[in-house]
């Protein structure tokens, strides 16, 4: 039977044999059964719980990583500082699909100046309580861009070491940078840097964590925890969860492309998205696509599903003749 005939028949009203059916009863039974299953799963296994990483935790657990990240924010070399849209005009993370960059077309609706907003402005809030920091900020701000660049180059070449709450840059003249980084480390380890100073400077409430999360991601600490739990992109990424809990397995259709070539070799999100969207369009419009819409009939699993009906109500070809 062709698709057209199949569909024409399926559109006709059913006038064949019926069976007693109670929709509300079935729904309530399903609710009770699924509810009991969920209560059992919840009570037995709970859910994954791992505290959020604060600047206090990060700077105390991995002070060198924190100070190195703060340095890259100050000098404008971090991933955030060079990201590109929607945060700034950089191109470090700018993705294109052939000649078109939708990311660039989206503009810069969430401007982030890493040096100013992630380092200098938070530090300025502590300056009234710290004379050395005040002097360091004045020196930095009073210096020419060329001088700042020279100090930055020297700082990047120097060996960064942590001595208590002091950041030491061995080798070269990094100007006020060691003092600025030491103040950042002190503020972070005390907990003062968390939340308000970065995300809501001068405001009472903070519900937007864009800046602090970007800063956090620029470091290696968050990723080191993710690596411990196999949460990185090359291990199916956000589909996973910590421990043995399921994460978002329904995203397999998306994350699978990050695991297999050529998508895994190209390594850009937009290529994966450009692959997944047509797949979903095909899936959505499957009833209109000859060949694909005939698959269920070709697979023939329906014969097992409706076997009782066929046995009782549809005569085999021999008997028909």
């Amino acid at each position, binding site marked *: 039977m062709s698709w057209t005939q199949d569909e024409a028949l399926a*559109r006709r009203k059913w006038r064949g*044999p019926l069976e007693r059916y109670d929709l509300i009863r079935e729904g309530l039974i399903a609710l009770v059964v699924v509810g009991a299953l*969920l209560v059992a*799963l919840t009570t037995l296994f709970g859910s994954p719980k791992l505290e959020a990483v604060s600047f206090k935790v990060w700077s105390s657990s991995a002070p060198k990583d924190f100070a190195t990240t703060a340095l890259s924010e100050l000098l404008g070399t971090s991933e955030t500082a060079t990201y590109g849209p929607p945060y700034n005009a950089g191109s470090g993370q700018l993705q294109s699909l052939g000649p078109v960059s939708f990311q660039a077309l989206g503009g810069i609706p969430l401007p982030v100046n890493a040096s100013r907003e992630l380092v200098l402005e938070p530090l300025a809030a502590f300056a009234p309580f710290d004379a050395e920091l005040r002097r360091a900020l004045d020196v930095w701000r009073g210096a020419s861009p060329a001088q700042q660049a020279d100090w930055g180059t020297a700082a990047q070449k120097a060996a960064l070491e942590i001595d208590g709450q002091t950041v030491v840059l061995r080798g070269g003249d990094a100007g006020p940078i060691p003092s600025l980084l030491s103040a950042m480390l002190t503020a972070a380890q005390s907990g003062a840097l968390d939340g308000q100073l970065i995300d809501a400077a001068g405001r009472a409430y903070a519900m937007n964590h864009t800046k602090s999360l970007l800063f956090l991601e620029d470091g290696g600490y968050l990723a080191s925890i993710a690596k411990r739990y196999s949460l990185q992109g090359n291990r199916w990424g956000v589909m996973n969860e910590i421990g043995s809990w399921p994460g978002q397995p*329904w995203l397999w259709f998306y994350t699978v492309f990050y695991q297999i070539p050529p998508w895994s070799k190209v390594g850009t999100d937009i290529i994966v998205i450009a692959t997944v969207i047509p797949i979903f369009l095909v899936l959505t419009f499957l009833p209109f696509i000859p060949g694909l819409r005939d698959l269920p009939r070709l697979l023939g699993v329906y014969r097992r599903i*409706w076997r009782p009906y066929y046995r009782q109500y549809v005569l085999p070809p021999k008997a028909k003749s």
Partner: protein
Amino acid sequence: MSVPPGAAAGPGNPAALPPELRGTWDERAREWILRTWPPSQVLPAAEPVYVKSWLYAFGVATLASLVILVVSGIVLAVFGPEWWLHGKVGGWFGALHYWAVQLFFLFMFAHFIAVFLMGAFRGRRVTWMLGVLSFICAAVTGLTGFAALQNFEGQWVTTQAKDAINSTGVGGLLNLLDTGRILTLHVVVLPALVLIVVALHVLWVRKHGIAPPYDANPEHFAPEEGPT
């Protein structure tokens, strides 16, 4: 013109109203609803005999999971993040919400496989498309749920997933790092969208009925074609 005294007219019997009181938008909408979803079809006393397989249970199991998802979500919304992040009872409800979403997608996937193998989109194209759309809406809702967790998973999921969203140029509109926006999207906007699409999917199932078996006995069908 008023209704003559003694006429059996009124909201319960609009057909008895005089012509000048007929044809309102309300009346047309009511007639369309009753014609499209007659009560006997929405809440049927019987279904065709072929609706027997256990595979049909996955659809209703998906809906049951959705109900528990919504109820547990309302409880979490009432008591707030501090409660679910640091309280024992709050943590339990958070875990219930977490497992409900796992089962919701599991049953939805099983339902999808089952209806595909049954070729249930024959004569029911809109129903199928609404089903796929409900999965897409639910997947986005699920992602924002993980993003709104406000623990390590929330931090990791948001910082990783943002790059994909940014690459499409809508990073400013759907900023996963803005916890306030993501939380309200996850609690209000996206669940409403899922519920609307799922409700339409169910209504279309009730409108057209359950797809019949391939090669069903032609004598079991009305001679004319039903509505498309």
